[in-house]
């Protein structure tokens, strides 16, 4: 288990390196590795790119993302200034690997049956081909959920995120009834699930997200991982997808990325026929879809049943 974590950390790290250039950071990391003898040797070697373009091997323990070492407590009520988060989901790339779900669960310290992101089989008409639809909270610009909250426990932030103040939520579930996309989940009680969350709230700092522990009896959902993003780490689902289906980005920068490819948001939507779900409801989602044309995979029916176990009371 630990080994696997190490590996995935490394993979994420490499992805990040490629994504952001990470030049300065790497320089520091290598400098640290070379100059300081205090770092424990793990014996594992990692290839990294130096500032002058050379690939060198260093000890894995020498590498750290300075920001990811400690969880930061971003105030949930304030948006990250200057940002306007947005997502594009390329339906042509989704192969129902369900890795986004796993990554999200791990990052938010939840286990099944809690899914902040769901992958659904959709078929528009009998004659058209079915496709897979990854779906999470759309962080709408005209959110029906925040409108109905009686205590301002869910609200729209300046960075576009629809967030939840878990310390204020009274658990009336009106927001769940109001959401036409069924994006919200409820923490129904002291279950094996909530015990897991409590037990793991301090583990794996890199996976830290603003809702490390959803209090029992409150509503929760996809939060667009603002903590990770503020530290320069892409949201968990984006990084976990093996096919690069989910693109996360900032509308102000007009860029979205899945960690490998980066696109200009406006052009991507224009050229690829971007659309939003149920536009006629007027909710103005911040999640766009690209139609499932020229697919990477042919549609394959899911042979397995997922998420079949209900909650268990401890």
């Amino acid at each position, binding site marked *: 288990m630990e080994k696997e974590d190490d590996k995935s950390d490394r993979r994420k790290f490499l992805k990040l390196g490629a994504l952001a250039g990470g030049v300065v950071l790497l320089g520091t990391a290598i400098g640290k590795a070379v100059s300081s003898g205090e770092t424990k040797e793990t014996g594992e070697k990692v290839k990294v790119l130096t500032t002058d373009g050379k690939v060198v091997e260093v000890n894995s323990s020498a590498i750290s993302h300075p920001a990811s070492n400690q969880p930061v407590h971003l105030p949930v009520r304030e948006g990250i200034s200057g940002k306007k988060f947005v997502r594009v989901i390329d339906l042509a790339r989704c192969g129902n690997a369900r890795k986004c779900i796993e990554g999200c669960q791990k990052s938010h310290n939840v286990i099944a*049956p809690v*899914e902040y992101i*769901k*992958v*659904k*089989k*959709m078929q528009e008409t009998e004659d058209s081909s079915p496709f897979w*639809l990854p*779906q999470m909270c759309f962080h709408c610009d005209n959110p*029906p959920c925040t*409108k*109905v*909250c*009686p*205590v*301002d*426990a869910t609200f729209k932030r300046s960075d576009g995120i629809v967030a939840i103040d878990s310390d*204020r*939520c*009274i*658990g*009336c*579930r*009106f927001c*769940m*009834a*109001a959401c*036409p*996309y*069924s994006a*919200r*989940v*409820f*923490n*129904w*009680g*002291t*279950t094996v699930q909530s015990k897991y969350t409590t037990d793991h709230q301090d583990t794996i700092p890199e996976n830290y997200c603003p809702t490390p522990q959803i*209090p*029992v*009896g*409150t*509503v929760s959902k996809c939060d667009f991982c603002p903590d990770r993003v503020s530290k320069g780490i892409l949201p968990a689902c984006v990084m976990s997808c093996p096919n690069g289906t989910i693109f996360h980005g900032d509308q102000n920068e007009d860029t979205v990325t899945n960690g490998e490819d980066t696109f200009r948001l406006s052009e991507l939507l224009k050229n690829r026929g971007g659309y939003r*779900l*149920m536009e006629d*409801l007027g*909710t103005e989602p911040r999640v766009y879809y690209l139609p499932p044309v020229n697919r990477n995979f042919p549609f394959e029916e899911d042979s397995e*049943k*997922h*998420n*079949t*176990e*209900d*909650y268990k*009371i401890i």
Partner: protein
Amino acid sequence: MNQEHQILTPELIEKQSIRREEMRADLLRPLDKLGMLGKLWIAFLLIIFLIGCYAYYLQLKHGLIETGLRDYASWGLYISTFVFLVAVSLVGALISSILRFTHFTWNRPIMRISEIVAVAGVIWAGLIIIIDMGRPDRVLNLFIHPRLQSPILWDVVVVSTYLVTSVLLLYLPLLPGIAFLRDRLVKIPKWQKWMYKFLSLGWNGTQEQWTILKRGIRLLAIIIIPLALSIHTVTSWLFAMTLRPGWDSTNFGPYFVAGAFLAGTAGVILAMYVFRKAYHLEKYITEVHFDNMGKLLVLLAFIYAYFNVNEYFVPYYKMKGAEAAVLNDLFSGNFAGLYWSAQIFGMFLPAVFLMFKKMRTPGFVTLIAVPVLIFAWVKRFLIVTPTLLHPYLPIQNVPESWKNYFPSWVEISIVSASFAGVLLIITIFSRFFPIISIWETLENEGIELEDLDKLKKENV
């Protein structure tokens, strides 16, 4: 009111005083001692209530996981019962206020029954909404961080105002009665004497007190009409303010209000029948009352039917995608049995049967009121849950139990306890206070207690 003013001759005063004493005696008798049947009834209600308390303890301990609710069907029995109890409580305004401003006076003896039904209903509606909350410990957030844009806040405001107004509308006409009990009952425990003394607010029937009382009641009776319409309209908005198929309806306000009057009237008929039998009030709650309530039920059932046609058949004609899924499930799917039973036994057949005069006997009207009441509750469930089980996006990859909703024993016990709670409030109230307003009933017979009190004072 509309009686001609009579000249009070000594003979007439004598006659009226006798009549008053007779009525007082009739209404005092039930307060005297609790019969075996009464004891059993209260014990039965208490047991149900205590089972519910234990169930709620479990729910507080483990969370709402104890219910059958899950992420899709996130509202169920509790919210349905909330809507039902709010609905029933509307009758207080109908019987004791709307009819007060018509030229009818037959409703006088049943005004207090309908008012206590309203008060008990709205108290438990408020409680059950707290029971439904995931974090009842944070209920004060509604006052610390209120968001006035939320229909829940509107509901909190109107329901609490309606409760206060209903309690006052129950209490004010009761003042002369409490004062009478204070003066008349001697062989009662000290606390009870103290209670009557405290609650009578020093009433002694002066001309000034009567004037204030009547003016106050009239004012409250006016205020309560818009309030009653508001509480149920706002309750309907909890649903109609969302984008969900099945709830996204402009018809919801009047549809809810019409259904509420029907449910409440059935509730009052039931209460009338029980009080009439248990407290031997045949002289006051007469066959005329059941006949009239039967007619009222017919009228209300037809109004409700009209809104049902608009609510269900208009969208059914169009069969718009997402709406069609809910409607098909109601008309011919999983909920068809409940839906058609509710429409036929809760609305259609009662209206048809009670159109015939022969059917409008106390026994039969009550027999009809029972299914009307039960199916009114079922109907609230059919409004709440099927919509939640038919969201726009398909329900996939969830545990099988999430795709359906069946209430757990905890939910059923708590809801039963809330009904027991309603009945306990009504029962206990009727043990301590006359269930028929003496002065208002006598007023209807042309006897002004006000005048009698005045004459009594002059004679002394």
